[in-house]
């Protein structure tokens, strides 16, 4: 709840508390308000625009890439950046720009899939644990603690060792690692919301647990989860790169930023562009997801919202 008192209409002898609040316009949907506030935060807005561009590139990778990512051209190998090949070529004469563009599709797809898995499974676990408490909480969260106890990369490697490499399995491996993160964030948020009077009020009119969870608890517990999603996307892209770098994620000859980084490592002293451009792509994507996450955190905090909207709301 907002701590600040609401503006009361000017008191007059005949003032009544009934009727329409005259000074305020009809409410806009929350998400539009959120977007509006986000746009006023230049850093977050810029990060959002860059991410939008990256996503668009990832979606239209086939059309945007100047040449096929696996087109080998022996006479063009290890070319420095030029007009013909703006990002240069690798040791097999493949166009780096095309591979970075197609790598965006691979990296983001794995990242989104991984976070989607972690979001759905982790939030559900956190929601149930936080709402029901007692033994449900104990059982679910101890299980999450076990997952947490493994180092993230080790856990992902274990999943991939069992299921074999590949984009889908990479996403699953990264997703499993982030399930406990979402479970904890969701549980913490739900613990606060479930004690709210409006949840009890809804129960008092006969609402079922399912209704309480979906209509009241989850929407009000959502802001930290949204922030976590944005920040986890950054980590997921990074994790995909790391796993591919280790040879466990995307398999050659498919382009992935992490894999390109690994392949370029051997040529770093004679052809810096092999590792440089995929590295920049990873850096930019991760940075933007983090900046957007920070911006969302500011905007979704009710107290911040009050300050930024100019008070009184």
């Amino acid at each position, binding site marked *: 709840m*907002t701590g600040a008192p609401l503006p009361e209409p000017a008191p007059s002898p005949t003032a009544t508390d*009934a009727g329409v609040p005259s000074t*305020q316009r*009809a*409410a806009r949907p929350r998400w539009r308000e959120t977007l509006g506030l986000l746009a006023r935060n230049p850093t977050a807005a810029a990060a959002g625009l860059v991410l939008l561009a990256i996503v668009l590139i990832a979606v239209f990778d086939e059309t945007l890439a100047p040449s096929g990512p696996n087109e080998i051209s022996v006479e063009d190998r290890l070319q420095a950046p030029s007009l013909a090949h703006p990002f240069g070529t690798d040791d097999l004469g493949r166009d780096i720009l095309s591979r970075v563009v197609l790598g965006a599709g691979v990296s983001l797809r794995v990242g989104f899939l991984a976070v989607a898995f972690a979001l759905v499974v982790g939030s559900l676990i956190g929601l149930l644990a936080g709402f029901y408490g007692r033994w449900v909480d104990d059982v679910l969260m101890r299980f999450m603690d076990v997952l947490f106890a493994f180092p993230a990369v080790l856990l992902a490697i274990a999943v991939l060792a069992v299921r074999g490499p590949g984009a889908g399995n990479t996403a699953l491996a990264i997703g499993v690692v982030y399930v406990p993160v979402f479970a904890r964030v969701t549980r913490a948020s739900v613990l606060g919301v479930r004690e709210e009077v409006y949840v009890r009020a809804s129960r008092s*009119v006969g609402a079922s647990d399912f209704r309480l969870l979906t209509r009241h608890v989850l929407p009000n517990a959502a802001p930290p989860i949204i922030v976590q999603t944005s920040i986890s996307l950054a980590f997921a892209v990074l994790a995909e790169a790391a796993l591919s770098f280790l040879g466990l994620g995307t398999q050659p000859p498919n382009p992935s930023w992490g894999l390109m980084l690994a392949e370029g490592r051997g040529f770093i002293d004679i052809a810096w562009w092999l590792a440089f451009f995929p590295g920049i792509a990873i850096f930019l994507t991760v940075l933007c997801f983090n900046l957007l996450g920070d911006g969302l955190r500011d905007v979704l905090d009710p107290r911040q919202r009050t300050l930024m909207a100019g008070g009184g709301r």
Partner: protein
Amino acid sequence: MTEDVLVSARGLEVHFPIRSGGALRRTSGVLRAVDGVDLDILRGETLGLVGESGCGKSTLGNALLRLVPPTGGTVTFDGTDVTSLDRRGLKEMRRRAGMVFQDPFASLDPRRTVAQTVSEPLEVHGLRSGGRERAARVAELLELVGLDPAVAGRYPHEFSGGQRQRVGIARALAGEPDFLVCDEAIASLDVSVQAQVLNLLRRLQRQLGLTLLFISHDLSAVRHIADRIAVMYLGRVVEVGPADAVGSDPQMPYTQALLSAVPVPHPELERSRKRIVLRGDVPSPAAVPSGCRFRTRCPYAFEPCPDVDPALQPVGAPGQLAACHLHGVVGRPVDSGEPVAARD
């Protein structure tokens, strides 16, 4: 009593375990929020429930609707045992019994519009199928509580406290309940708005034939609205009776002290008002005194008080009951085996 009882509590107990931290969660004590309440609420009446903060008024109100699970005793609502209702029965009971909460800033979901909030009971109970009929019903309800139906699309943060409380009342009325628990419903409102909401509740009670449990620590408000008054002290109803009788001729020393604390809106009378100032503080509900729970602060405490737990007995006006040994020692002797709070 021959009158028509709608809600009845017998020996109702709500005890919360006090848990010490740690993974093993040992129970280190019991908080007796409600501790053996006997209370009848008659159909169509307004019963005022008063007492200091922390005496268990709100817990009692919540326990009557099973929003807090009772740990002992029974609650009957219109003849059915509330404590043993199945899921379906409980849902229907909650349609027939509504609740208005204390803090109108906390009791409305900030992410839902007024229309969504007010129509929730309609959706939950499948009343008025179809969006248009529900919208019409919401408009009707908003008008009933004195709000412009045009505000249906707005969010709670756009309203003042009094307006929000009206929305909360509209929600409580949506299922066409017989029984309404108003849990400190006016306590967090401005004084001028308090009167408006109080009058609204009284009007609705008459217009809709509601049975009202009006929980408040504000004795003046309760005397204004209630037909009968019940006084609670440390988890127990210690006096109950017609509002006039309890208000003007209280039979229990605690009620006398409570009433003497109410300011009189007349300078001369106020100056001559005699206050009974109780010594000490309310004992903790985790360590309730043996026998009469008021004895540690009662100016008239005598021999039987620590040994016999007083029961409500008819005293004073017709229909007036008080739990006090001054009117004759009636009650259950304290058996020596029971843990008794350390005192003296």
